[in-house]
């Protein structure tokens, strides 16, 4: 049993490295961290002012993370979630509470290196107090078979004068089926930034539904999505910003690049119920700009190399 756990931890760490993570973080006592494989907590490190409370469930783990009032966590928290076998379900319910005058950055790697049939559900509840910040980055690493269904749903509230930045990146391996949802309220002078970067191939399907509700005066939101599709991949991106309060400012910026017989749809919705709010949007769907490719070709790159550079930049 013990060796089995060690093997599993080893496999998680390998996948973590492949997805660009630095394994040393899990050995550094100053770096807060948690490693969850399936429904097992394989590692956990708390630092002063940060409480991590995991509770294993049948199909995953419920985790509560609290950053105590007045604490700014120095090093970004490292999270590693994943399923090593070909098949399985992992349901993570994560509640993150950033109390007042507090802040944390966190980078989460979700790894499914052997996925053939895996369902990964993440339900986030994010509460950010006043004068606080939470920057959360989620990087996915899937195998080449495309057998993953990823369903991250985030509900949150950004308190007065606080910041929430969430970045979702899935550009290594196949997407499989991705269904992202955000619904976040932003209070007075609060700021929300949501970034999604996805590269879909084969028969992958992508659905992104992001919603920022600007409820407080002078609150701000930026929703930026970059989806690159090739082969027969499909995507639908629904980005919504609602301005309910005076001087609320929001912007939706969605670019989808389609190649081969891929299909993309973008629905930017901007709603304003307060006449002093201002929300703007830009959405572009199309193939890669031929002038951009020709420019790179004129520097000696082949067409394939040029496509990689343009797509790489877009998803960076």
């Amino acid at each position, binding site marked *: 049993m013990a060796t089995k756990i060690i093997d599993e931890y080893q496999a998680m760490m390998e996948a973590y490295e492949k997805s660009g993570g630095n394994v040393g973080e899990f050995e550094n006592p100053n770096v807060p961290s948690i490693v969850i494989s399936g429904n097992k907590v394989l590692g956990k490190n708390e630092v002063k002012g940060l409480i991590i409370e995991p509770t294993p469930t049948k199909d995953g783990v419920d985790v509560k993370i609290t950053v105590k009032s007045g604490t700014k966590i120095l090093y970004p928290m490292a999270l590693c979630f994943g399923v090593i076998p070909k098949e399985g379900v992992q349901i993570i319910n994560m509640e993150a509470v950033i109390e007042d005058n507090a802040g944390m950055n966190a980078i989460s790697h979700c790894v499914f290196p052997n996925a053939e049939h895996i369902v990964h559900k993440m339900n986030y509840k994010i509460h950010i107090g006043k004068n606080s910040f939470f920057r959360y980055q989620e990087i996915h690493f899937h195998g080449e078979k495309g057998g993953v269904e990823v369903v991250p749903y985030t509900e949150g509230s950004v308190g007065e004068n606080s910041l929430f930045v969430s970045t979702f990146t899935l550009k290594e391996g196949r997407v499989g089926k991705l269904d992202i949802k955000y619904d976040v309220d932003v209070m007075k002078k609060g700021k929300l930034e949501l970034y999604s970067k996805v590269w879909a191939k084969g028969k992958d399907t992508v659905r992104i539904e992001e919603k920022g509700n600007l409820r407080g005066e002078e609150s701000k939101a930026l929703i930026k999505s970059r989806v690159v599709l090739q082969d027969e991949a499909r995507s639908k991106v629904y980005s919504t910003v609602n301005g309910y309060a005076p001087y609320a400012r929001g912007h939706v910026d969605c670019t989808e690049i389609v190649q081969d017989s891929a299909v993309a749809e973008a629905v930017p919705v901007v709603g304003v119920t307060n006449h002093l709010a201002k929300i703007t949007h830009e959405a572009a769907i199309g193939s890669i700009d031929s002038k951009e490719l020709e420019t790179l070709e*004129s520097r*000696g*790159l082949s067409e394939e190399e040029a496509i990689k550079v*343009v797509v790489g*930049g*877009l998803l960076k």
Partner: protein
Amino acid sequence: MDAILEVKNLSLIKSGKEIIKDFNISIERYSTSAVIGINGAGKSSLAYVLMGLKGYKPDKGRIYFDGKDITELSITERAQLGITLAWQTPSLFEGLTVKDYIQIGAKDKSLSIVKDALERVALDPSVYLHRIVDKSLSGGERKKVELAAVFAMHPKLAILDEPDSGVDTISVEKVMQLIKDFKKMGSTVLLITHRDRVAEIADKAFLMCAGQIIQQGAPKDVTAFFKNECTECNHKGMPVIKKELMKEEVK
């Protein structure tokens, strides 16, 4: 003459209009040659045909580079032979840093080469190396990055399409110096411009009008003609210029 580039009887038709007509030019190796002409003369189209852009395959004629017929070659193949283009209005690239952009084509990708190229266009490397080549750059800054990237490539033939356009007056001096540096480095330069002042730093100038070269020679003579006589033509009737030219030749 040792020509690095020779264009023979080139014709390009776009939307039913002959933009380049029975065009001939011969560019001497290691020289700086200016192609001058008013807006719409066909200068950029010529640059695109020479670079081999997909929408600019010639309808007639041949292009020889280093004695080799390159008419059917792709952009990439031409670039790998040593031809490149500094675009008149360069594209923007999301997520790509100035450093990345310059290194893409650079023969020697070392940081010192990138920095040197930036300094030559009056862009402080400590400020610009990590800037993104997107809409956050001003038009003039983007132009300078373009020239730096082409310079770092050490091309055999650098086609510079209006290198000074959008560049502020102080930096224009730097750009002029850079054009001279291309020559020192051993590049042949095809300098496309509508400004006589820029054309005058070349060794030889060609006057392009309505898709043809109508005069060539010492830059001063060509620009003088461009300034003084060309207006009569008003870019409508080639024959007017031809008549003027014929008079000159008779003299």
